[in-house]
Every structure is written in structure tokens, then in C-alpha cells.
């Protein structure tokens, strides 16, 4: 049977299928303009501002990766800190071998992707809540292995051995690195969703049994996403390491608080949308900036926001907005006719 010979159909004219070409061009043009403006910031503002934006950039990258895993492939991971920590620690290794930290970020992403491949066989033996707990356990095991290496600072953390000496240049380079990682995470996610894989992933998220029965290779799709998300988290981990010129302690960089942060940002922004994690990261960044000094009240405010959004805006801030307006910066929908 070919595309033209579905049994029972006549050779009638079919409606056209669109994919929001105008909205796509507008969205990508707007995104490019924002990224270019952000790239120019080191020439325009104080390094304190770009220093803060480094955090926003890696938060967006982390949220995008967790959204890719959970919002598109249906894998609720609580162990992405394994790859954040590996990204940071492998950066020490490549940096010790003379690779500068900026190119090294790309190298550690690739290395962590390679490590994530065998780990996926372990993690994929579990499903649902067991998968979430299993990934957390994997992260703890990775931490326990890393602290066995004295050359990596053992349980005490360590500093990078070779960084740009000029502090002004170093801050600018770190900011551009963070910006590049954020752009790659968001636009990479978008490109993946626009591909054939993206439609398959959304099918897997909604019902993996039905997806398999329609020819979607469920395990391969999930593994691709797991590896991509590991590479993205490793890049974010490398940025965190470069920004702090090292790692304060393995407990901090391998801490489950990163997973909790990712969940918070994605739920607040809107799970299953490309834009949601960006909005969620921005919301968390602002909460952190203005309430972090408020001690326990900071946590109360963060918790209250999470509860309020979950109860009243279950699709998150962007998800609710998009549902009401039909607007998307990164459209992925197919539209028949019109």
C-alpha cells in the first residue's frame, strides 16, 4: 500500500498541512535578536549583571533538559545531578590535560553522553516512580565513585587548574559559554521536537504501548532523549564549575536539589512546551534574586508559588497562556487546511 492507495479512499484532493511557517520565522528571528542582544551585554553592562545572568542561563538549560526528559519522553528523572556533577568533574580532568575550559565544556558533554549510554540500560530496567528513584540512586553511586579519586579533590571539592587569568575576560567568556549552552539546550530541544523523533517522543509520552504498536521504537527514542539530556546537564554542570572556578564539594554538585529545582522550574513554566522551562527558570531566578536573603521565608514563598501554580494553573504559566491565546514562540503543531 502506498500513500495514494489507502483502501476505500477516492483520489480526491486533500487539504494542505501547515506548520506555522510565519510564526516559526517570527519566533526564531525574535530568539536570534534576544540572543544577539544578550551576547552584546558584556560590552554594555557591569560584569556583576552578566555574572547573575550566567546563573539564569544554566537554569534555563537544566530546566529544558528535564522538560525534554519528562515533558516529551515521559521519563521522570530525579537523578540528573549525576550528569551535572560528571560535567563539572570531567572538566577538571580535561582541564588538567591542557584543554581550556570553554572547549572542554563541549568535550565533557560528549564524554558524558558516552557514559549515559550504558547507564541508560540500567535505568531503563525501571519504570515510573521506580525510574525516578533509580536515577537518584545512580546519581548517588556516581558521587561515591567520584569522591574515591584524590586527584579530583576526594570529598573536599577542588579548583580548576587552568583558567583565563584576566578576570574581565574570564567573566565575559564564562557568560558567553553559559549563553551558548542555554541557546543549544533550547534550540536543540526545539529542533528535536520538529523532527520525526519529536512526534514519536510525544506519542511515547502520551502512551508508549500505543506508540510501539504504531511503529515507534520506544526504547530507542527514550534512550536518545536520555543521552541528549545527560549531555545538556553535563554542559550546565561545566558552566557551574567554570563560573565558580571549581566545585565547593561533591555533595553540592551531585545534590538532589538540582533535580528539585528542575521540577520546580518546569512545573511553574509549563511542562511539555519549549517556552515553559525558560519562563519557569526566569520565575525561579527572580524569586531567588529577591527572596533568597529572606531566610526561611524564601522557601515558604517558593513552596507557596509551586502549590498555587499546581492548583490553579496545572499547565504552568506559559502552558496556560498558550492554551488561552494559541500563541507559541516555538510552534511544533501541524495544522490541516486554513
Amino acid at each position: 500500500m502506498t500513500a495514494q492507495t489507502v483502501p476505500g479512499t477516492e483520489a480526491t484532493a486533500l487539504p494542505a498541512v501547515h506548520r506555522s511557517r510565519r510564526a516559526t520565522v517570527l519566533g526564531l528571528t525574535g530568539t536570534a535578536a534576544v540572543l544577539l542582544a544578550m551576547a552584546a551585554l558584556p560590552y554594555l553592562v557591569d560584569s556583576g549583571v552578566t555574572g547573575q545572568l550566567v546563573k539564569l542561563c544554566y537554569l534555563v538549560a537544566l530546566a529544558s533538559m528535564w522538560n525534554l526528559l519528562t515533558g516529551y519522553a515521559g521519563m521522570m528523572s530525579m537523578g540528573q545531578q549525576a550528569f551535572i556533577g560528571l560535567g563539572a568533574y570531567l572538566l577538571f580532568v580535561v582541564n588538567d590535560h591542557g584543554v581550556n575550559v570553554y572547549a572542554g565544556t563541549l568535550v565533557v558533554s560528549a564524554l558524558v553522553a558516552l557514559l549515559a549510554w550504558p547507564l541508560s540500560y540500567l535505568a531503563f530496567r525501571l519504570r515510573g516512580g521506580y525510574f525516578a528513584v533509580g536515577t537518584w540512586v545512580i546519581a548517588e553511586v556516581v558521587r561515591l565513585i567520584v569522591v574515591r579519586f584524590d586527584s579530583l579533590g576526594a570529598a573536599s571539592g577542588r579548583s580548576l587548574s587552568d583558567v583565563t587569568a584576566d578576570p574581565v575576560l574570564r567573566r565575559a567568556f564564562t557568560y558567553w559559554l553559559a549563553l551558548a549552552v542555554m541557546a543549544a539546550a533550547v534550540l536543540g530541544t526545539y529542533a528535536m521536537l520538529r523532527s520525526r523523533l519529536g512526534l514519536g517522543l510525544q506519542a511515547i509520552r502520551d502512551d508508549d504501548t500505543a506508540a510501539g504498536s504504531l511503529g515507534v521504537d520506544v526504547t530507542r527514542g527514550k534512550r536518545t532523549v536520555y543521552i541528549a539530556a545527560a549531555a545538556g546537564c553535563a554542559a550546565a554542570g561545566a558552566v557551574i564549575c567554570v563560573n565558580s572556578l571549581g566545585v565547593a564539594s561533591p555533595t553540592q554538585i551531585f545534590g538532589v536539589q538540582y533535580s528539585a529545582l528542575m521540577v520546580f522550574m518546569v512545573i511553574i513554566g509549563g511542562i511539555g512546551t519549549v517556552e515553559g522551562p525558560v519562563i519557569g527558570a526566569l520565575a525561579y531566578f527572580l524569586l531567588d534574586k529577591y527572596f533568597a536573603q529572606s531566610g526561611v521565608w524564601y522557601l515558604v514563598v517558593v513552596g507557596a508559588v509551586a502549590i498555587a501554580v499546581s492548583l490553579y494553573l496545572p499547565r504552568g504559566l506559559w502552558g496556560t497562556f498558550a492554551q488561552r491565546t494559541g500563541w507559541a514562540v516555538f510552534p511544533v503543531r501541524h495544522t490541516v487546511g486554513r
Partner: protein
Amino acid sequence: MTAPLLRVEHLAVSFGELRVLEDVDLAVPKGQAVGIVGPNGAGKSTLLSAVSGVERASAGTVRLAGRDVTRVSAAERCRLGIGRSFQIPRPFVDLTVFENALVGAERGAGLRGGHARELALRSLEVTGLLPLANKSAGALPLLARKRLELARALATAPEVLLLDEIAGGLTEGEAEELVATVLSLKESGLTILWIEHVVKALVQVVDRLVCLASGRIRADGDPHEVLAGAEVAEVYLGGAAA
């Protein structure tokens, strides 16, 4: 005599200690429509799941066009030509109706771009879903969900179409619409294996009827003869009626 397109030999499926299917043999020639009836718990849906790869066979073989697919994944079986619907519709709720069908056309039929979109649209056309193409699948009523199950399976360009109670829960008028659609598919030469409790709908389409009970085939032959036979009466009404 030509080899059957689908052949099931000594098929058994167990869930732990429970034997759901036992020593099932079934051969379906190309272009034939076979109906399967039987009481609840007879193993009908499990048979379809074992054929489509959703459930693993604990013994026996499933062959498609002579190729042993018993250990092949559900996705690969779909790509080889086994399309199926589910008894309880399983739409991709956050995708549109068109995108649901497109999944089948891209991944099951292995088509790309315009060819995939055309096949998806044709499958919606034949099932009467084209006007709902942009609607979210999660918002569809039952009849449309049943039709979407059929459309998605057709979009995989199947050689064998497995239908699991697509007329169940529908009004008489709705069921008749579906029967007309399946009949046109059968008349176009598609091989069909159809489980249905609505026997009136089934006999309008199938060439052959199989009665399954307690995981075993009890009768297999002309639909009217099978329905009039003692085995079916025994299966549905108990030993006293036989």
C-alpha cells in the same frame, strides 16, 4: 494453495501461573476477513496482543508472510505490516487527530514529508475524521476515538489489520457506520482479524468466524455455521445448552 499471510502455531500466552492462551492455531490467507468471538476472558484481546507483539508468547510462533516474528518487537511488527486498534482507545491525547495518524504514517509506514502527510490524511478521510483533523485527540467523544484507532492503524499501511471491538459501546447507527467502513476496507483486499462482541456487525463483514473460549479455539469456519454450532452455544450458555 498459497501460504497464509498470517499464521499462528501452537501459540500460548501466560501471565504468571495463569494460562490465557493455549495451543492456538490460526492461518489467515491474504485478503480474508476473520472474526473472533468468545465470552469475556476467553483470551481474544490477548491473541491480538500476541500477534501484534504487545504481549510476549510463552510458546508457539507467529509468522507474517512466512517470516517468524514471534521475538520481534511490536514496533518492528507494525513496520512489517501488522496494524492494530485497541479495545479501549489509547489516543495520544496532547496531539491533534491528524498528528495521531501522522505517527502511524511516519513510523509504521516509514514514510516522510508529503507522503506521510498524505497517507495520514487519507486514513482520516476513509474513517470520516478529516473534519476533526485539528482537534485535540483528548477531546474526542467515544465514536471518534474508535475511528481514530482505526485511522491510526490504517496510517501504518498494514498488510494485516487487527481490530479489537471497535463497535463496542456504540449506538446501532454508529456501529453501522463503522461496519460500512470496515467492509470497504475488506473489499479493497485488506486482510482483517476482527474481535467483536457485536456479532451482528461482525457477520456482515467476515468470511470466517473463530470461537475462542478459555484460551483455546473451539470452532472455526463459516460464520453462520459456527454461530449455529453446539460449541458456541456451549461456550456462551454452558454445557446444559449443548
